[in-house]
Structures are given as C-alpha cells and as structure tokens.
C-alpha cells in the first residue's frame, strides 16, 4: 500500500507496488491508524473512537432519560423514548448543540416502526462543531405522532415539513405543518415509506433483441 508518500518526495519509483514502509518516518499516530490494513471481514459496528468522550458527556447530560447509543459511524446516535424527546432536546441545546443539520426518518417496515433522527451540531460552541449528534426516537408506524422540535430549533421547521409529507409523520406542535416539496395529492401517497414502490423500468440486464429495439423507455 502506498503510504505517506509526502515523506519521500524524491522517490522516483514509477512502479514500486509495495514501497518498504519507513517506520521512523511515519508522520503521526493518527495517520498510522488510518493506514491499518484493510480488514477482509466486514467491520464491527461500534461507536467511533473519536466520539467515545462525547458519548460520556451526552450520557451525563441526558441522565434520567435513559439514552441508548446505537452503533454508527461519523456521528453519535442517541436514542431516547418519545416522551423524553423534548426534554432531551432542551438539554442538548443547553449543552451547545444549537442547530439541526437534518431531520430524517427511516421506515422500519418489518418492525412497524419509524425512526426519527435529528442530526445536530453546533455553530457557536467551537468544541462541539466537530461532532454530529443524532437525537433519535422510535415511534409507532400506525400512529406516527412525534412532538415537534421546531420550538427548540427553528432550523428544523422545513425539515419537519419535508418528513411530514414524505412519511406522514405528524409533528405535534409544529407551527405550519404543510407539504413543502410535493403537491398535496402526491404527499398523500407518503412516497418515502417502504410500501410505496416506484415504478421503474426493469433492472434486467438481459433482453430480447426485438423487444429492445422496440423499447419506448425514453
């Protein structure tokens, strides 16, 4: 593996597939960690190492609300119960997470659940800027009600409207819950739910020659 070539700028080596590693010249532990051999097996999902410290802090802040931390990469997934969502949001905002990057929902149709996630980060608190925290909760798929957090983070307003039209999740207490991108007729189909199927051309790669020449897919 070509590693840390910046330490040997004059190396001509047009084809040296495996340059001898120079252990003394390894720049930093951090980049060494990046160059770990590629694991053949799929990686074990865990909480990413750079988030371990934050996890403790968040657990401290959300004490009493029974937060659980789901394995994830690139962000910290904090799951609280629906009843505690508003309280958890308030505490996280006090902690410094001052705006919402994304409000996303996932349809777990097998478990008959929606997961609603508020991805948060901070502008004003520069220590927290480098983290993304997802405050998430599971709700029933049959009665999709979740308290709106627009009152706490105004930046969630349009995101919640979008998830409302895409999934039919009703954000209780949202000031202006109308479809945002879609017309009401299309929004009634709840397009992002898993039971809505997009009709597209078949994915078959093989086709009959005559049928192919007569295709009208354009």
């Amino acid at each position: 593996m070509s590693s840390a070539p910046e330490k040997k700028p004059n190396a001509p080596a047009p084809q040296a597939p495996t340059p001898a590693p120079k252990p003394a010249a390894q720049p930093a532990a951090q980049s060494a960690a990046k160059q770990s051999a590629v694991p053949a097996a799929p990686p074990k999902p865990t909480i990413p190492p750079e988030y371990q410290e934050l996890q403790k802090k968040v657990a401290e802040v959300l004490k009493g609300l029974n937060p659980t931390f789901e394995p994830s990469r690139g962000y910290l997934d904090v799951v609280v119960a629906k009843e505690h969502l508003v309280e958890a949001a308030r505490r996280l905002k006090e902690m410094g997470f001052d705006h919402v990057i994304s409000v996303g929902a996932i349809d777990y149709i097998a478990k008959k659940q929606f997961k609603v996630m508020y991805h948060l980060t901070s502008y004003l608190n520069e220590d927290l800027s480098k983290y993304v925290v997802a405050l998430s909760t599971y709700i029933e798929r049959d009665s999709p009600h979740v308290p709106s957090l627009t009152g706490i983070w105004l930046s969630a307003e349009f995101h919640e409207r979008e998830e409302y039209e895409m999934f039919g999740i009703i954000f209780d207490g949202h000031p202006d819950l109308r479809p945002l991108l879609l017309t009401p007729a299309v929004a009634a189909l709840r397009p992002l739910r898993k039971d809505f199927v997009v009709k597209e051309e078949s994915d078959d790669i093989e086709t009959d020659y005559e049928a192919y020449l007569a295709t009208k897919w354009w």
Partner: protein
Amino acid sequence: MHVPAKPSPKEVPRATFLGRAVAGNLGALAVGVKYFFDPNRITLLYPHEYIKLRQGYRGYIVLIFDKCISCASCARICPARAMKMVSINVFDKKLKKYMKKKYPVINYNRCIFCGFCVDVCPTEALYHVPYHDLVYNSMADMVLTLEDFQKEPEFVTAKEGVPVTYIYDEKKGLVKVHYEEEGGEVQKAEGGQASAATEAQGEQAQGGGG
C-alpha cells in the same frame, strides 16, 4: 505535515462618500471601457467552429466486438439502464461452431455518459470517441443496433466546421486556437505542451475572429 485550516477575519472594504461616488464609478467605468476596446471573447461560433476535444473525453461509446467476452459487467453497472445484453448467434472460432452469445447494446435516449461501462469493462472492449454533438432523426434511431454500436458515429459538425481548441492563458483565461496549428506544434515539440508559438497564434486567431 499537518497544517490545519485557519479562520481569518476579513472586512468588507469601506469607502468614504467621495471615494465611493468618484473612485467607485470611475473604476467601474474604466474596466468597462478597457474591455470595450480590448475584448476578450471566448464564444465558440458553434456550427462554424467546433471544439476538437482531447482524447479521454467521455463522448459516445463504441463496442469492439472481438474483444467482448459477454461478461455483462457494463450492463450491470449502467446507472441509467441504457445498456442491455442481447443474445445473437455468432461463429465461435475456437469451438468452430455457431453459438448464442450475449453482447451489449446501448440506448442513447437513456445514456448519461458517466463512462462506468467503459471503466468497468475487463477487456477494454468499449471506448469513448471524443465527440458528443450528434444528430438523430428520431428517438427510435437512438436505440442503437448491435451493428451501429460497433461503428464510430458520424461526426457531422466536422464536415463543415473548423476544429478549434482552447488553451490556457494567464492573461485571457481560455484562448481559442485553430486545432491544426496547435496539433502541428505539438507534434513538433513532442512535449504535449502548448508552446509560446501556439499562444501567439492563438492571439492571432482571436484577433481575426472579431
């Protein structure tokens, strides 16, 4: 080497009233007048000129029939479902008999020229031609047959137009140059680099174009 990015506070340049009313107006007018007398035109006069694109441009795709091993990777990776595999009877030279084999065909109504098929082909049986401005009479014509897919499509613009190419210039950004001249230079220079001579020619061509 770890050089973190650093925030650097900056300020919008302030101007006094007089500076704004006089210097601002005069500066804007001066730039306008400068370009009025010395225009820097980059427009391509399209049907009369066309850009001779360099090799590597992701243009129309051509199949080299003999190299295809019917692996269907191209059809599988096609993000627009433009490429399909069709079965035809071909004479197999090794086995000395006719047999059914699968070959890719392409529907240019759908193709988005991402080039994934060309890049994924394990035997390089597909390649791009470096042009993209073609005309078809109907949408049905854009569903290519296997025979058409093996031919390089006819480049109609090249019949009437003058080939030009754009070279980079520090003063003018992109400069339009007639292709033959630059091509000749490149062949002589053998470096693949636009020499000073070509730049001079480029300016000449620029002046003549007005």
